[in-house]
């Protein structure tokens, strides 16, 4: 058990270091043999997922594996020394329940992606670099989700965006993918540079880079307000929230499907960072200073986020209706799904107010909305990821993604059809799958806050279901098309990749309370109790 405790103690560093080392070794191992390299990459990602599972278990149980590493459900790791010292000079990772929750998402998606890639990428050139970049993306995404240092966050943001842009342009012979990659890198480097400017503003005022230290010493100066605006704008840009959503469906649609699954994780990493900035770094603004200010920051921020969210949902759903390309259509559905998360969290922020005894609290509806929003982050990653993998399987088998030309694939591709049905029901929120569980929480809580929001959300969800049913009909049902009569079921590795996600979707759909009670509730409490995070350093 001693070894296990040591492993858990060092797991925050190893979670980043193992995929990085794997990425550096991949070009060397690729020299030996393609199969050896694939096995190696899958092993590296599986190792990482295992470490994440250990870390998350330790954090959620408050130290069941290594009690001395965890206090108040927060595990810290300082690089280069035993502790961070009185001025926090060193980089520290601070993993609380919310970080662990996000890391769990990042544990599932790359694993499915690399297993799926084995057959999906079989005939492509440049596989060494492809796997290297996938591992780098995984490492960067995990770094974004675990780090407790502002500048370190910027570095990982850039690692993910460069790796992502290169992979979006993987099919360089198709002009649209090159274009989508260029758009993506322009947008994301502007976003990242604004984040860096905000970091510099913090540094100039507080002479600190650690999130907890900044959050502890933050005042309500003009520069803090500017930094908040820049952070929210740039992270919204990177998350694909309307009106800055145009890059997202293109990037999702033009990248190879196995890459898209990981890009979903990176997008959600940016979303997580936005929540972390609002709830923790600006926690004092939202909870303590809010009661003394004439202009109520939480309400203002909440209403702004809700407005953006509604716009995102409506734009996403209506643009999805118009699409004639399968992958772009799922991309717009992904935009709408991000809107649902933002809607829930935004309305939760808007409910923060003074109660009778003069303490700032979030109402119970707001707390439920926050839980629903966080739960939906997990569900969206799984549902949209599964749909993209299915779309990739369709492309792999039929070499076509246009909805007008596809048809009648269900006869030859039985398993893929089943997976698409699972993804369809999950993403449009039908029972008994996971999307229903989280969307129900969002509907209930937003109905208590403002019925109009809830009704708009439900209507858009129904429209989304209608769109997907139409797609299902035109791709998988319908008359047999002679061009696709020889289509075969996709190879086993791709089916396994899809099955990994589908099994988790069904599990969460069957036991939603298990997940909500054990994982989602601690995560939402970690966001609400910013004091614990600030006290972790």
């Amino acid at each position, binding site marked *: 058990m001693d070894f296990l405790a040591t492993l858990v103690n060092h797991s925050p560093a190893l979670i980043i270091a193992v995929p990085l080392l794997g990425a550096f070794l991949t070009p060397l191992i690729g020299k030996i043999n393609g199969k050896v390299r694939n096995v190696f990459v899958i092993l590296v990602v599986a190792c990482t997922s295992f470490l994440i599972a250990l870390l998350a278990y330790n954090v959620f149980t408050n130290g069941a594996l290594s009690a001395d590493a965890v206090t108040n459900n927060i595990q810290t790791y300082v690089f280069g020394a035993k502790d961070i*010292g009185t001025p926090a000079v060193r980089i520290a990772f601070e993993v609380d329940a919310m970080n662990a929750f996000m890391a769990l998402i990042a544990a599932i998606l790359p694993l499915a992606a690399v297993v799926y890639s084995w057959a999906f990428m079989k005939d492509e050139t440049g596989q060494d670099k492809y796997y290297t970049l996938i591992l780098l993306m995984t490492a960067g995404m995990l770094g974004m989700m675990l780090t407790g240092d502002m500048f370190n966050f910027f570095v990982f943001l850039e690692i993910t965006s460069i790796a992502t842009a290169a992979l979006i342009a993987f099919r360089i012979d198709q002009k649209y993918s090159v274009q989508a990659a260029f758009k993506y890198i322009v947008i994301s480097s502007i976003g990242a540079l604004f984040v860096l400017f905000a970091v510099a503003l913090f540094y100039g005022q507080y002479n600190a880079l650690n999130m907890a230290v900044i959050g502890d010493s933050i005042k309500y100066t003009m520069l803090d307000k500017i930094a908040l605006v820049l952070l929210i704008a740039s992270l919204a840009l990177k998350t694909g929230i309307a009106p800055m959503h145009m890059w997202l469906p293109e990037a999702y649609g033009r990248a190879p499907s196995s890459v898209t699954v990981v890009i979903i994780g990176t997008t959600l990493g940016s979303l997580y960072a936005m929540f972390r900035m609002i709830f923790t770094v600006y926690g004092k603004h939202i909870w303590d200073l809010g009661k003394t200010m004439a202009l109520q920051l939480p309400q203002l921020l909440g209403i702004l986020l809700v407005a953006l969210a509604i716009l995102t949902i409506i734009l996403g759903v209506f643009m999805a209706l118009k699409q004639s390309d399968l992958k772009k259509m799922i991309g717009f559905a992904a935009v709408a799904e991000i809107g649902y998360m933002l809607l829930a969290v935004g309305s939760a922020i808007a409910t923060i107010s003074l109660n009778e005894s003069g303490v700032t609290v979030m109402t119970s509806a707001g707390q439920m909305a926050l839980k629903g929003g966080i739960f939906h982050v997990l569900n969206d990653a799984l549902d949209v990821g599964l749909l993209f993998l299915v779309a990739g399987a369709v492309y792999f088998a039929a070499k076509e993604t246009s909805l007008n030309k596809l048809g009648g694939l269900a006869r030859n591709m039985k398993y893929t059809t089943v997976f698409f049905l699972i993804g369809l029901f999950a993403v449009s929120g039908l029972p008994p799958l996971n999307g229903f569980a989280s969307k129900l929480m969002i509907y209930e809580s937003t109905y208590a806050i403002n019925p109009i929001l809830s009704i708009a959300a439900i209507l858009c969800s129904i429209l989304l279901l209608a769109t997907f049913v139409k797609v299902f009909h035109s791709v998988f049902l319908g008359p047999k098309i002679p061009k696709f009569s020889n289509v075969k079921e996709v190879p086993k590795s791709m089916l396994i990749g899809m099955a990994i996600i589908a099994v988790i979707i069904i599990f969460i759909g069957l036991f939603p309370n298990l997940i909500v009670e054990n994982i989602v509730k601690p995560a939402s409490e970690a966001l609400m109790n910013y004091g614990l995070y600030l006290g972790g350093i």
Partner: protein
Amino acid sequence: MMSKRNIVGIFFFLVIALLFVIAALTTHEFGHPEKSVIPDMDDHIIDNTQTETGANNAVTSVVFDYRGFDTLGEATVLFTAVAGVILLFRRLKK
């Protein structure tokens, strides 16, 4: 010849410009970082770089020791860019 898109663009541009100008006005006086906060972290590094890291050069001690993990990330960024560029200019057929 002002299209609607241009007007919206100019509006957002002006808003962002205002942000940066206000930031430039309200940042502490140039050359006097101690006017906003006492630079604890940097003074700690300057005073202890020789005893804690053994290096005379405080910048190198920050880059490779105090914030060594950032440098790993930075090296990774360069590695990523090289991998990406080679991937983009690869031969498409085997």
